[in-house]
């Protein structure tokens, strides 16, 4: 598994990092910690890293916190593998430097510059991320201080699953909502993993509209329930009417994680006609997992 953590210097990013640490502790995933600085041009086309920038300093703290938690000698991230690597300085110039890597797994720390959501999505695509984790403000905007729309845009446009961590609470129950037929194997495995790591209960909710469930979606709900049951994961299933759904997700659901299988033909487009993924994650009070 490859996890991309994208954060800035604010407390919501620090609390999202805790989710990443917990995931990495159990999955031994390859982790990238990323921050995005505003695009800047410098003389001769070289990007000069502003090391005093609060985001750069926060990234350092996040790496230190990650390794404090997971860098012990029996950890796959323990920095014990010394070697030399060639680092590009600028066009046609390389320097060989001594580096220390994790004994089995790496935690990479990267800075990109440009538009926050664009750069996060680019990094996820380039790195082959399976999960992007971001924090965001808990209010209706679900935004970042310096780039209000970034978390919502990442959730709406990522090719992989996205975990928007809105609160620092343990996850005791995963409410996984489905209203479409196509569900990827990767998304089933992601839920599986989160249930295992958090020892959480799993509840599948099939969304209906005006009392009628699409028969295929209902069949899929049962099939997914059987999938988890066959794996020994206790699962509850129920149907929920779309018109009452917004009221459910806009209240604080305590230690729940709301998970949604997202698709172009989702019933949720009826509730949120435009940019529905982005609006939807904004309305949810709890942390949200957008599954792909």
């Amino acid at each position, binding site marked *: *598994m*490859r996890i991309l953590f994208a954060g800035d210097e604010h407390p919501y990013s620090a609390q999202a990092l805790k989710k990443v640490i917990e995931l990495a*502790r*159990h*999955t*031994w*995933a*390859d982790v990238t910690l990323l921050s995005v600085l505003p695009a800047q041009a410098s003389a001769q086309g070289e990007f000069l890293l502003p090391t005093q920038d609060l985001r750069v300093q926060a990234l350092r703290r996040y790496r230190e916190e990650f390794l404090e938690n997971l860098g012990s000698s*029996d950890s*796959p991230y323990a920095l014990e593998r010394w070697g030399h690597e060639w680092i590009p300085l600028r066009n046609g110039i390389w320097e060989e430097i001594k580096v220390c890597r994790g004994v*089995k797994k790496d935690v990479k720390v990267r800075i990109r510059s440009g538009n926050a959501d664009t750069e996060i999505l680019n990094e996820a695509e380039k790195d*082959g991320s*399976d999960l992007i984790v971001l924090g965001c403000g808990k209010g209706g905007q679900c935004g970042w201080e310096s780039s209000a729309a970034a978390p919502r845009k990442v959730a709406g446009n990522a090719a992989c699953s996205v975990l928007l961590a809105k609160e620092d609470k343990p996850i005791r129950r995963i409410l996984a909502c489905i209203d479409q037929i196509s569900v990827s*194997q*990767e*998304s089933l*495995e*992601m839920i*599986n*993993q989160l249930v*295992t*790591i958090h020892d959480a209960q799993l509840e599948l909710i099939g969304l209906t509209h005006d009392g009628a469930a699409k028969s295929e979606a209902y069949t899929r709900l049962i099939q997914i329930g059987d999938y988890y049951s066959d*794996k*020994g994961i206790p699962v509850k299933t129920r149907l929920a009417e779309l018109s009452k759904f917004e009221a459910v997700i806009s209240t604080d659901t305590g230690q729940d994680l709301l998970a949604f299988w997202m698709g172009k033909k989702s019933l949720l487009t009826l509730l949120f006609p435009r940019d529905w993924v982005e609006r939807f994650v904004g309305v949810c009070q709890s942390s949200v997992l957008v599954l792909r």
Partner: protein
Amino acid sequence: MTSDQKTTVLLLDDEPIVCKRLKPSLEKAGYDVEAFTKSREAMHRLTEKEFDIAITDLKMDGMDGMAFLTEVKKRHPATEVIVITGFATMETAKESYQKGVFDFVAKPFKLGEILEVVKKAEAKHRPS
């Protein structure tokens, strides 16, 4: 073993969709792959052939992946074993390494990731 012989891979996962996804990708990358969904059948095949690399799920009916890993290392210590699992925990990861696993990969993963791990296992198994 000559250098132009393909690296052999045994793939064991009780979910047919996993084998269906991984086998062709590994074959396209040049590996000779035999896939199994039942650990008993995979174990029997191991009595007939030594594979360079074994990829195994952990949670399966019958012989689970941890027991399979133990048996593989007992019969063919040189075989590099890669564990793939949807039930990753710190404890299972540590136990796998204690039993000699080459790598521990939590699901979900992209094909590129598992191919990288297999290449590293191959490099260790057949150092040039």
